[in-house]
């Protein structure tokens, strides 16, 4: 009976992740429109986009191999797998002990690896260009994100997200210098990982400036829908991961309906606020020149390293 209950919570969480991620992306887009002085298409627009792409036919290049066809499913699937281990609504997540935070990052990295392969698979100039840029960004973000996570796991004495979140909520962890450094590093890395301004521009039509979009330029129909949806889930998960690591207050420790309802309520508020912060960064900044990214991501790495050092010196 107990385990059935846990499975139910797990399924609920996966459904929430898949279903809510587009709404979060829509919320960010909506805020973005408002800050630019426009009326927005509403929170539901990403759902309409996905629905539209699903009814369209797939146009496949003649020389596309299985990698190209397989990648959209991998991207979507990996996002869902990670979505099942991040404690979003409950601490007692059935699958959470099966993977720690480093595994989560590794799953995303493998999805990215396949995306880069798929970009090069067709042999167009843009695919290769986007893949090479994406790999450059990845080689700089991944050390930074791992460093940020090490800081948090040092403080939480575990790399398991559940342990970290538990020690935060139990008050064992208060806001400390190392955590603040790690949080700043994590924010910078999330911007880079999810391809947002000032690193990449998700809404651009300029082929030559694209990073992520250049890799998936040849995708269409349901393939594109899955990749877009997967990216939205990824974006949502990075934000919730940040929330789980740095702002875990309000998450349900016990699994009764009331606690979960409160946890969902807090989650929504936290997501809205974090979305707002991201939008302010995005609207206020122009995209960086490509080779400035190294400075930006080194800053993230530096912050994360400072977090680790601060932990050993100050705490």
């Amino acid at each position, binding site marked *: 009976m107990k385990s059935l209950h846990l499975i139910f919570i797990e399924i609920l969480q996966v459904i929430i992740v898949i279903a809510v991620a587009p709404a979060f992306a829509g919320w960010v887009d909506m805020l973005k429109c408002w800050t630019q002085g426009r009326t927005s298409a509403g929170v539901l627009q990403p759902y309409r986009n996905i629905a539209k792409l699903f009814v369209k036919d797939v146009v496949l290049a003649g020389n596309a191999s299985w990698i190209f066809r397989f990648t959209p499913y991998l991207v979507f699937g990996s996002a869902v797998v990670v979505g099942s281990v991040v404690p979003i609504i409950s601490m007692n997540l059935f699958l959470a002990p099966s993977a720690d935070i480093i595994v989560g990052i590794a799953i995303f990295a493998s999805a990215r690896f396949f995306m880069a392969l798929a970009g090069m698979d067709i042999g167009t*100039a843009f695919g290769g260009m986007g893949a090479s840029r994406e790999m450059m960004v990845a080689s700089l973000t991944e050390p930074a994100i791992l460093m940020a996570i090490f800081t948090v796991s040092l403080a939480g004495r575990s790399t398991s997200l559940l342990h970290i979140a538990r020690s935060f909520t139990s008050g064992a962890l208060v806001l400390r210098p190392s955590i603040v450094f790690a949080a700043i590093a994590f924010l910078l890395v999330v911007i880079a990982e999810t391809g947002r301004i000032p690193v990449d521009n998700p809404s*651009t*039509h300029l082929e*030559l400036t694209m990073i992520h979009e250049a890799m998936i330029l040849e995708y269409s129909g349901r393939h594109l829908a899955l990749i877009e949806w997967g990216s939205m889930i990824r974006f949502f998960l990075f934000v919730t991961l940040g929330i789980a690591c740095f702002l875990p207050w309000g998450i349900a420790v016990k699994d009764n309906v009331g606690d979960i309802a409160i946890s969902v309520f807090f989650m929504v508020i936290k997501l809205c606020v974090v979305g707002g912060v991201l939008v302010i960064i995005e609207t*206020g*900044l*122009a*995209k*960086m*020149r490509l080779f400035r990214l190294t400075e930006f991501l080194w800053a993230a790495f530096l912050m994360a390293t400072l977090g680790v050092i601060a932990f050993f010196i100050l705490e």
Partner: protein
Amino acid sequence: MKRLAKALSAAFGADAKADGHREPVTFTVPVERFADAAKTLKESYAFLCAQWATDDTNSDRGYGIYACFRHGSEYIIVRASMSRDNPEFPSLVKHFVPAYRFERQIRSLMGVTPVGHPDERPWIKFEDWPEDSWPLRKSFDASKRMARHEGQYAWLGAEGEGVYEIPVGPVHAGIIEPGHFRFQAVGETIINLEERLGYVHKGIEKRFESMTWETAVKLAGRVSGDTTVAHSIAYCMALESMTHCHVPVRAQWQRALFLERERIANHIGDIGAICNDAAFAFMLYQCSRLKEAMLATNHRLFGHRFMMDKVIPGGVTVDIDVTAKKEILSELDFLDEDFNRLVRIYEESSSLEDRVRGTGILTSELARELCVVGVVARASGINVDCRVHNPFPPYDSIGIEAQVLIAGDVHARVWVRVVEIRASMSILRSILTKMPGGPIAVECSAPLPDTTGFAAVEGWRGEIIYWLQSGQIGQINRCMVRDPSSVNWLALEQAIKGNIVPDFPICNKSFNQSYSGHDL
């Protein structure tokens, strides 16, 4: 006699026959000395504005080759005749770089050979057209369907460790005109960019020849849709110079009013679009809002958002009354305030500044070599502005100056636009307060047979040149259109060298040349 004319007369003596009745003065030289004439003028610091050929075989004079030069406010045209059987002339490429494309175009469309030109590939003409199809020749029947055959364009290539090629276009991911750009890059650094244009070739110059003088103004207004006012004015002024038609003063002021409104609207749109290419979308939407407000006012007051077909030979078609005047003035106040707020945001965004400064530098030396015009020239330290150097009323009396910067980067091109918008706003205010009364159009007589007309007008992109020639029965025999894009596209290729691939869009947008005006 002015500087260039004097220099040419001194060097050529009896070999250069001046036709002083025409404005600008046209010298006829022997065809074998055509390049010498260019060399002489180059030594007098002339710029090459345009080069074109005419087919005079119907009047038994073979082919004509023309080149138009400018120095300060002086224009001069040098022409030479070629025989019907052997139409060739010495190439000017050695002396003037822009001749590179002018002459490729002349060879492709008129079948006249520039001897000594280093590049034999066609320009604008498609490679699958038959070798001997020269659309601008009188013998070419434009109503027939063009035969097609196999053809390949020979691209420039680059080889070496790590060199790769990025073909972009002609179909782009955004909604823009078609053009093909081929980059040779090492990593992200561009070592060469080759443009291939001509995808919107519509045969406009040929089409002019089958139109009447009155209807052709409509075609001129459609050469490049965003510059419709400037093109119509240039055509009308060229025609009026042929017929010695005296346009009423009020009509000229009205034309200036249209021209400046077109300039402001397009410059504002450009500034937003440039910022958007650095992913600073806020500026795009705010600038679009201001541009849209102007276009809506145009529609309300003049009946067309872009003021198309409002300029006709002999004057203009719409007058403004007191309420319209008030409306424009109050709109200017609102534009002024909002625009200055946006400029402050532009200035204070350091991340934006990082993208626009030092990007896509076109040095003054290069700009001079390439004879660029308009905003691009003024951002690279070249003082050219027809409104200053060849003003028509009211520009001669309201006191304006060319806005010149020397940096030559994207920021300079943005800033020239900013300063010009402010200048144009004050020009509009003076026009509205001082506009004289009187009729807005007069009847113009048809041109006499075998005459030519010329006009240069500063559109928002830069100097637009029209050269008209009437035939034996007074019809349009040739209408040469030189949009600023015809020279400025070449400068983009040069400005982009050494930049990184992702910086190309913002450089391209800062030039913002017309495909349609170039491809004709």
